Structure formats: structure tokens, C-alpha cells
């Protein structure tokens, strides 16, 4: 070490760096890591959803699925203790694997089967499987500050709090937004590939996980989130529908979701717009309420 080594500068530098790290470590130990951080990508949303599932009390009902179901926000549902674990750009198998890996399953598990062409995300499954998620040692100070502000300023609504606004939304007529450009693009994408192999693999895995979960007392029901009539006829949707219904032919395995299709709209060609999502959420509420001996 040369005689001119600026020890004082590096000592101050180290004190500042370690001080900030220590402050964040203490804050994490003190407050925990449960604040819902703002998500800037769909991946972030996934992690937030799963963080909540493994750190909060087990809900009575969980929804698993893809981005189609992700749009059904929890505050749209009147059913209490319902948690939506659908993963935008993800596979329902990811959620099902995580739910099955937890010590106690929810009473009712609803699995959307529209999109089964995607494999489970092994990284997300590994992170949230087992007795609990591994918590990071340090919280992210900037995101936590923003999360605290956002939660204070725009706290997530309960169904009761949102009911008036949802009622107003339902009173409006369906949107007249012309989505044909988005729909054409979605159709092009959904007609491009043959998902047979992936769907078969995922359907088989879902069957195995259903058997495991039902042995542990959960009831697993399948459902299809409504998509537009054109998209329903796409190659991918038809193949998926045929394979899944062939593997699960028992009508009692399916949640009977009843809705008026003419009321529904898909603003981006694929996903339900907000009003339609509320309608479908209410339909699921009714279907859950009518389950024999479960509610």
C-alpha cells in the first residue's frame, strides 16, 4: 500500500455506504418487506402477487390464469377472501405449482384454461415454493418510499369501497371502441403456431396437481375467461379448448360462469375492458355462490 493512499477519504466513503446499507437492513428487519411495491413491468406484478400470497393468510378462493384473468381485479369480486394469482404473460401452471407447494391450500382453486401454451416459470416457482419466500435482506429505499406514498394516496380498494364506482361503470353502455387493428394482430398471432404439444403437457400437469390438491382438501375448478368470438375460433384457442375438454370431460370439474356475451368488449382484441371484467367477476361470484355445500 503506498504512503499516499487516501485512507480518510475511503473511510468516509465506507461509513456512508455501510451506514445506508445498515439503515435499510434495519428497516427491513423492523418493518418487513410486505409493502406492495409499484410494478413497472408485468414481471414486477407477478412478484407482488406471489409475495402477497406467501406472506399473507391463505385466502378461501384463488384465481389462477394468464393475463386474461389478471384483468379481473380483486375489488370487482363480492366473494370475500378471494385472491387473484393470475400472471400477466404467464401460465396458470406456475400459480398452480406454487399453490400446491404451500403447506395449506385454499378451499377453492379456480384455474383458467384459455392459454396453456406457456410452460410454468421455473424461477418464479422455485422462488415461491416451500415454506415461504426468501425475503431479501435489504428493502429498496426508493421503491419503498414510492410504495408507501402510493399506498397512502391510492390505497387498494375493497369491494365495498369500490361498489359505487363499479355500479356506475355497469350502468354505462358497452364501449364502442373500434379494436379491429388489435384484434387482427391478435388473430395473426394466435393462428401462427400449433400449441398442441405444450397444451397436452400442461393439461397433464394440471391433472396431476389437481389430484394432489384435492387429496389435501381443496376443490379445484376449471373455467374459461370469455374472449371474442373471432379469437375463440383461432387455431390456438380451438386446439387448447379441445385438448383441455378431452382431458377434463366431467362437467362438474368446470365452474359454470354465465354472462351476456353481447355486453362484453375486448379493447385490445384480447383482454376484457374494465366494464366487461366487472361483469365477468360478478358472474364468477354467482357461480361460486351456487356451488353445492361450499359457500
Amino acid at each position, binding site marked *: 500500500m*503506498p504512503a499516499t493512499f487516501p485512507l480518510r477519504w475511503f473511510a468516509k466513503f465506507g461509513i456512508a455506504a455501510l451506514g445506508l446499507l445498515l439503515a435499510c437492513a434495519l428497516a427491513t428487519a423492523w418493518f418487513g418487506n410486505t409493502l406492495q411495491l409499484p410494478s413497472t*413491468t408485468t414481471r414486477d406484478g407477478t412478484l407482488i402477487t406471489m409475495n402477497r400470497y406467501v406472506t399473507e393468510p391463505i385466502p378461501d378462493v384463488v384465481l389462477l390464469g394468464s393475463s386474461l384473468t389478471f384483468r379481473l381485479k380483486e375489488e370487482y369480486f363480492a366473494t370475500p377472501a378471494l385472491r387473484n394469482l393470475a400472471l400477466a404473460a404467464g401460465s396458470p401452471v406456475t400459480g398452480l405449482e406454487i399453490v400446491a407447494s404451500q403447506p395449506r391450500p385454499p378451499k377453492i382453486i379456480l384455474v383458467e384454461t384459455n392459454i396453456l401454451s406457456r410452460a410454468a416459470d421455473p424461477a418464479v416457482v422455485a422462488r415461491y415454493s416451500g415454506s415461504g419466500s426468501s425475503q431479501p435482506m435489504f428493502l429498496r*429505499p426508493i421503491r419503498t418510499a*414510492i410504495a408507501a406514498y402510493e399506498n397512502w394516496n391510492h390505497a387498494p380498494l375493497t369491494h365495498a369501497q369500490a361498489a359505487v364506482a363499479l355500479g356506475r361503470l355497469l350502468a354505462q353502455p358497452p364501449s364502442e371502441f373500434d379494436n379491429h387493428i388489435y384484434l387482427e*394482430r391478435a388473430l395473426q398471432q394466435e393462428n401462427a403456431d400449433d400449441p398442441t404439444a405444450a397444451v397436452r403437457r400442461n393439461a397433464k400437469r394440471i391433472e396431476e396437481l389437481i389430484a394432489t390438491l384435492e387429496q389435501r382438501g381443496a376443490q379445484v375448478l376449471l373455467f374459461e375467461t370469455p374472449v371474442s368470438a373471432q379469437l375463440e375460433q383461432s387455431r390456438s384457442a380451438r386446439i387448447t379448448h379441445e385438448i383441455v375438454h378431452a382431458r377434463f370431460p366431467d362437467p362438474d370439474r368446470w365452474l359454470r360462469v354465465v354472462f351476456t356475451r353481447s355486453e362484453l368488449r375486448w379493447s385490445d382484441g384480447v383482454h376484457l375492458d374494465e366494464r366487461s371484467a366487472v361483469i365477468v367477476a360478478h358472474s364468477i361470484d354467482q357461480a361460486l355462490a351456487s356451488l353445492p355445500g361450499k359457500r
Partner: protein
Amino acid sequence: MTFTSWQFGVLVAVVFGAYYVPPLRTFQIQLLVVASLIFYGYGQPELLPLLAVAVFGTYLFLILALRNRVIWLPLGIAFNLALLAFFKYKFLFLDPAASGLTGVEPIDFLLRLPLPVGISFFVFHNVSLLVDLTRQKSAPPALTSVFLYIIFFPQLVSGPITRAEMFMPQIKPKYLADIPFVEAAKWIVSGFFFKLYVANNLNEMTSYMTFPLYETLQTQDRWLLVFLYSYQIYADFFGYTAIAIGLALLFGYRLPINFNLPYIATSFSEFWTRWHISLSTWLRTYLYVPLGGNRHGVFRTYLNLMIVMGLGGLWHGAGLGYLLWGLLHGLLLVMERPILSRLQSIDSVALRAARRSVVFVCVTMLWIFFKLPNFDHAIGYLSGMFALGTNPNPPKLFYNLALLYSLPVMLQHLVPHALFERVLPRADPYLYGAMAALMILEAGPETSFIYFQF
């Protein structure tokens, strides 16, 4: 191997540990060359022979050009430009998806080789080596010195583009006592902070600028994201360069400064003296001046500017978007040239602020062609900025988060330098310490440096 990987940290620690050990001092150059080869070949060893061809080829042409500059210098430059053209622009003429590109197996093998990382940078080093050393009529340098100049790992893949006449005289024994540790630490911490905290976090947001995601954005968010990308690309490239400069200092080499607060430029010509300075300097020295510069009248000057900026755009990639980006910058330079001296003669704070704003907004808008190299996508994004968004379910962007992640770039550019100088001498170890902690705590998801693709 990237600067942000743990493998790179281990490599630097091992090489630094051995570099200043007195018995190894005579092997310092060789040690850096070996480290650079490991750095470059890690993960893609098949590219090492190409690097060897570039270095040995350039060295051979250098030796020959030192004997006869007139014949061998142009050939040496052509050899390097041919390498660049072959790897970078081949798919302008060939379909990469075709099963048999030419039908000749060895040629197809070469054509299918991936773009060597950093080729645009080390080819420019090679040209500088040939021009500078043959102009100085100096004695032929040792092969290891040539190797070191071309492949010195801090600057190998993304610059700064160091001129041979600046780097070669620095090749001599180095001593630990000469290292400016604080300066090196400041550069390295700043670099990692700007990359991990600013660029990687902003990248999460600007990922919405890609096709077709951008179609779901609200109009005001399209505008916001363009400005965020402007901050991101600066933070990303400034970050890389700062790390490179700091690392080079640890090994006793001083690389040129590549950025000097480019977003406070009051003219487009000033912008190019502040942004990617080493590339602008290279283009001016080895292209603009040899083309005649401003010595042959107004029209020829404008033409030279357009040629240099157009080629500068194409240097970034073989695409219409890059060419257009360069040409539009050229056009802005041409347009401001006749009025620049008149504008500069007016001493007005308001006018200076207005000029800064105009330059910043124009430069920022042109970054769209970088983010979206597909020309149709870029035009689609641009036109959407001037139309009302129609998607009823646009993604939600957190403006407060965007502001906090952009803040370091804004502060760096907007806080008066004098204030920094007055406050920093006492506070700077604490400030850099806080930056070091924040880059760990608040690092965005790992993404490669934007300029790696060039």
C-alpha cells in the same frame, strides 16, 4: 463478460493483485493482454481468432506502412473497414434465414459467425494506430504493445475510442504509488451508479417503447418515455465509459473523457463536442478533415457534414433507422451553421435556455431511431406522439418513480458546477458512499449495456 458480472469483478481483482507485484512488473503488458483475451473470449471463445486476425493483420500492415505509407496505409485501412463491413453489413445483402447463404461451406461458416462484440470500436482503434504511427514515422512498436492498445479490456467493447498517439506513449512500467485511487473510485462508483440505478431502472419503463407495446400507451406517456430513454441511453453509456476510465486508471492508463454534460449543449455542433467525444473526435480527425472539412466552400462543408454524420449513423448498425438518425443530425448541423455565430453573439440567459431546450428536445426525439431501429416502428411511435391515444386500458407508469430514477442525470446536468465544487470537497466521500449503497440497494434488473450491440 460484462462489467456488471461477478466474474468480471474476480478478473479485475486477480489481475490488479498481480499487476503491481514487483517481480511481475516486467510482465504488466502481457498480463493485461491475457486478461483482455479472457475478458473478450469468456462465453464466446470462437471470436478470439477473429480478434487475432484483426490485430495481427493490422500489425503487419503497420510494419509495411512504416516502410511505404503511400501504398500500405490505404490497404491497412481497407483491411479493417472490410472486416467491419463483412461482419456488420453483410446481412444488408444476404438473407440470414437462408439455409445455404452462398453454397460454399467455408464462406457460409464465416457468414454465420455472430457480430464480434466491440468490432466497431477496435476497428477504429486499428485505423488510428495505422494513421497516427505512420504519420509520426516512429519506430515499429512491440507486438504486445499493439495488442494492448487494441484489446485493453476496459475500452475493448465500447470505447472510449482512444487515439494511438494518446495511448501508446502511456505504455511503460506502472507503480502502485502513482495510482489516483480516489479519482479511480469516483469514476467506477459513478459508472456503476448510473448504469445500475439510473439506466437499468429506466429500462424497465422504456421497455414499453418496443413494438407492439407502445401502441397501448397514452400520448403523454409516449412523450415521457422518449425523455426517459434519453436519460437512460446517457446513463448507460456514460456509466460504461466512467467504469472504463476508472478501471484504466487502476492499471495506470488514462483514457479520454467521453461525455461532458451533453444535454446542456446550446447548439448541435456543441452537442457533438460533449456526447461520445471520442467518436466525434475520431470522425473529425480521420474522416471529416481528410474529406476536406470546411476548407472547400460552404456547399462542400455541408456535404462533408452530411457524409460524416450519415456514416456515423451507419457505424452504429446496418439499418435505415441508424442512417436516418445520422443524416438528421447532419441536417441539424447544416441548418444551424449559417446562424450559429449570430446566435452566439447574443448574450441572453433566456436565449441560451431556449437554445438548450431546442437542442435537448431534438436530440431526444432522434433517439427514437436508436430505441426502435425498425424504421416503420420508429415512425409509428413518432406519429403516435402527435395523435390522441385511443386505448382505454393504457399501462400505468409511475411518474414519481420515473423522476427519482432520472434525477441523477438531471442534477448532474442542471446543478451549477460551482456549487458542486463548493460543497463537494467535504461531502464527496459521503456522496459517493451513498451512491455505492444505492446502486446495490436499488439496482434495476440486469440488462446489457446499450452500446454493446454496436
